[in-house]
C-alpha cells in the first residue's frame, strides 16, 4: 500500500514538473519580445504594464511579454543570460551598469535603430551616459538628482535663507548655515544627516558642482585620476560638518537613505540629502502634520551641475527582432508615456518634451525643484571608465569612509584615490 502511494505521488510530481517545462513559441505566430523591467513600486509597475498592454493591443503582430526583474540582482542575472544566449530582447538597467555589457558586445548599437524623434528629444549630455566607444547602447529615460529633503518648520523658524534652484546655497554658505542651524536646534540634534553608505557616488556626483572631475580622459583615450583642489571642495565640506562643526550627525555616515528618515521625521535632523525618488517614502511614511520641502543641492563654480546614472532601456545584441524592439522603445518613450513612467517612479524624465509637462512642475512634493535641477544634470564622472567598479569597491569606498569619519586627512585621501586608483585603471586599460 505504502509503495503504491509513494509511486502515485512520484508519478504526480513528475507530471507536475514536466507540465512546468518551458514551451517554445508556436511557429507562425506573432513576433514575441521579452521586456525585462526593473520597475518595483506599485505605481511604476502599473505604468509599465499598462504601456505594454496598450502596445500589445495596437500591435497584434509584435507582442511584448512583461518580465519582472529586480535591481538587487540584475547584473548577475543579465551576465548569465547573455552568456547563455537567453537574454531578454529589451533590457531595463542603469547606465552605470552597462559599460561591461556594451564593451562585451552583448548590447546592440542603437545608433541606427532609434528614430530621430527620440534622439533629438533626449539631450546630448544624457546620451553621453549610454555611449560606449562609438555606439549608443541604451536609451537613458529616467534620471534622479540628489536633492535636500528639509523639515520646513525647522528651516523657516530658524530664519535662514531658503535656497531655490535660481539662488542655491554655495558650498561655503551651506556649511555656515548648517553650523548656525545646529546651534539653534539644541543638543542631540543636527542640521544635516549625510547617509553615506555609498560615499563614492555622493562625493563624485555632487563634486561636479564645484568643478571636480577626478577622472580625466587623455587624447589617447586612456583615463587617469587626478585630484585637484576642486575635487576636494565637496568632501572637505562634508568632513568639516561631521568632524569640525559637529553640524552633521556622525551616526548616519554608514547608513543608507531610508535609515535616516526616522530621525528626519523625529526632528533629530533638519535636512537629509537623498535621491529625488525618496520623496515617495517620505510622502508615505511621514507622520501626520509633518511638513517637508525639497531644496536643490548646494552649487559651486559650475552651478547646480551634478552627475547621474540614468535608468536605461537597451536591446540585446542576440535579439533576432532588434527593429521591432526599437519600435517598441519609440512607443514606450513617447513624451506622454515618459511622463507616466517618471511619475510612477517619482523620478525625472530625460526627454525635453516630457520634462516640460506641467504635472512635473508643481510645487507639491517638490516636483518643481527637481525639474529645475534636471537641466544641470551630467553624466556621472566615472560613467564609462573601465575598472571603475573595482576602484570604487577596493580603493575609493574605504578611503572616503575613513576620510569622512576623520581617520585620515585630505592628503592621505588624495594619495590613496590617485596612486592606488591609477594602478587599478592601468590594469584595465592595458587590455
Amino acid at each position: 500500500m505504502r509503495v503504491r502511494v509513494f509511486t502515485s505521488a512520484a508519478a504526480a510530481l513528475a507530471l507536475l514538473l514536466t507540465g512546468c517545462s518551458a514551451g517554445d513559441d508556436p511557429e507562425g505566430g506573432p513576433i514575441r519580445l521579452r521586456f525585462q523591467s526593473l520597475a518595483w513600486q506599485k505605481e511604476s509597475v502599473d505604468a509599465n504594464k499598462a504601456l505594454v498592454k496598450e502596445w500589445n493591443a495596437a500591435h497584434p503582430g509584435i507582442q511584448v511579454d512583461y518580465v519582472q526583474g529586480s535591481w538587487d540582482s540584475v547584473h548577475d542575472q543579465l551576465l548569465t543570460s547573455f552568456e547563455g544566449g537567453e537574454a531578454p530582447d529589451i533590457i531595463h538597467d542603469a547606465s552605470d551598469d552597462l559599460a561591461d555589457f556594451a564593451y562585451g558586445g552583448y548590447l546592440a548599437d542603437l545608433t541606427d535603430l532609434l528614430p530621430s524623434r527620440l534622439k533629438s528629444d533626449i539631450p546630448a549630455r544624457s546620451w553621453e551616459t549610454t555611449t560606449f566607444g562609438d555606439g549608443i547602447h541604451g536609451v537613458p529615460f529616467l534620471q534622479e538628482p540628489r536633492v535636500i529633503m528639509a523639515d520646513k518648520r525647522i528651516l523657516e523658524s530658524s530664519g535662514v535663507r531658503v535656497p531655490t534652484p535660481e539662488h542655491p546655497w554655495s558650498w561655503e554658505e551651506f556649511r555656515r548655515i548648517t553650523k548656525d542651524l545646529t546651534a539653534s536646534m539644541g543638543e542631540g540634534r543636527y542640521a544635516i544627516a549625510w547617509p553615506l553608505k555609498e560615499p563614492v557616488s555622493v562625493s563624485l556626483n555632487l563634486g561636479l558642482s564645484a568643478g571636480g572631475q577626478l577622472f580625466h580622459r587623455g587624447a589617447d583615450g586612456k583615463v587617469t585620476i587626478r585630484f585637484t583642489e576642486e575635487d576636494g571642495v565637496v568632501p572637505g565640506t562634508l568632513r568639516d560638518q561631521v568632524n569640525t562643526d559637529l553640524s552633521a550627525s556622525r551616526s548616519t555616515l554608514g547608513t543608507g537613505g531610508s535609515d535616516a528618515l526616522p530621525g528626519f521625521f523625529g526632528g533629530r535632523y533638519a535636512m537629509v540629502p537623498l535621491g529625488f525618488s525618496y520623496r515617495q517614502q517620505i510622502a508615505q511614511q511621514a507622520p501626520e502634520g509633518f511638513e517637508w520641502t525639497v531644496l536643490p543641492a548646494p552649487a559651486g563654480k559650475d552651478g547646480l551641475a551634478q552627475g547621474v546614472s540614468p535608468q536605461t532601456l537597451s536591446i540585446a545584441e542576440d535579439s533576432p527582432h532588434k527593429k521591432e524592439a526599437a519600435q517598441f522603445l519609440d512607443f514606450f518613450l513617447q513624451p506622454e508615456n515618459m511622463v507616466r513612467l517618471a511619475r510612477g517612479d517619482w523620478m525625472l524624465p530625460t526627454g525635453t518634451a516630457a520634462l516640460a509637462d506641467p504635472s512635473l512642475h508643481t510645487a507639491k512634493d517638490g516636483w518643481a525643484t527637481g525639474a529645475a535641477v534636471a537641466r544641470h544634470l551630467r553624466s556621472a564622472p566615472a560613467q564609462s571608465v573601465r575598472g571603475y567598479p573595482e576602484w570604487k569597491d577596493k580603493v575609493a569606498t574605504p578611503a572616503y569612509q575613513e576620510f569622512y569619519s576623520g581617520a585620515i586627512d585630505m592628503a592621505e585621501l588624495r594619495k590613496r584615490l590617485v596612486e592606488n586608483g591609477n594602478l587599478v585603471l592601468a590594469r584595465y586599460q592595458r587590455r
Partner: protein
Amino acid sequence: MSTLRTSRAARFGQYLALLAYLVFLAFPFLWLISTAFKPAPELGSLHPTWIPKDPTLANFRQAFDEQPLLQAAGNSLVAALAAALIAVVIATPMAYVMARHRGRLATAATGWVVVSQAFPFVLVIIPLFLVLKNLHLINSLLGLVMVYVVWSLPFALWMLTGYVRAVPAELEEAAAVDGAGRLRTLVSVTAPLLAPGIVATALFAFITAWNEFFFALVLLKTPEKQTLPVVLTHFLGAEGVADLGPLAAAAFLATIPSLVIFAIIQKRITGGMLTGAVKS
C-alpha cells in the same frame, strides 16, 4: 554541598546562555512579524515599538496585490519537496555503500563531496546554464529541481553517511544470522534506525531549496515560474531602497511553510532516535 552549588550555578549559566541564544535567534523573526503589521508612519518612527500601536493588514494586502505570492509559494513548494524527495532517494543507498564499504573509492568519494561544497555558485552557474539550455530545461521547474538535487546531494550524502555509521553493524550481522537476506536486513533493520537521519536530511534539502535564490533567479524567466525568494526581491528598489512593510509581510508568509514542516518533522526526528536506541 559545594559541588551541588557549583552544579546549580553551572546549570543556571547554561540556561542563561541558552536563553540569550534563543533571544538572539528569535529577535529578527519577531521584528519581522512586528514590521509586517505596522502602518507606514510607524515604519518611519524614530522610536519604534515591538507591538504596533495601530496594527494593520494593509502590508499583507499590498504584498498580495503587487506580487503573485501564492503562485510563487506553490512553485517553491513543488521545487523544494521534489528536491528533498529525490535527494534522499538517491543519497540513502549511496550513503550506505560509503559507510559500510570503506576503501579507496569511498574515501575518494567523501573527499569529492567535501571539495564540491567549496564551489561558489557563480563559478558553476554559466556552465550549468548552458547544459540546461541544451536540455531545454531553462525556465522549467524540472531543471531547477535537478540543480537543487545536484547541489544538495553532496551534503545529504555526507550527513546520511554519518547516520549509517551510527547504526551498529552487529545488528545487521545478527539479522543475517537469524536468516534475513540482504534486502530484508536493509528494509527491516537498517532503514527504521536510519529514519531520523533520512528525515533530517530531507529537511535540510527542503530548506536549502526553499530558500535558494540565485539559481532560481537565473534559470526561471517568466513570472509564472518564479519562486518565492525571487519574487521577494521585487519589493527592493535601486540602491537598497525597500518597500519595507509589504516586504516584511511577504517574508513573514514565506517563513511559515518551513516552520510548519519543521514542527511536524521534528517530532519524527526525536521519535525515530528513541526507537533506534531501544532496538540497539
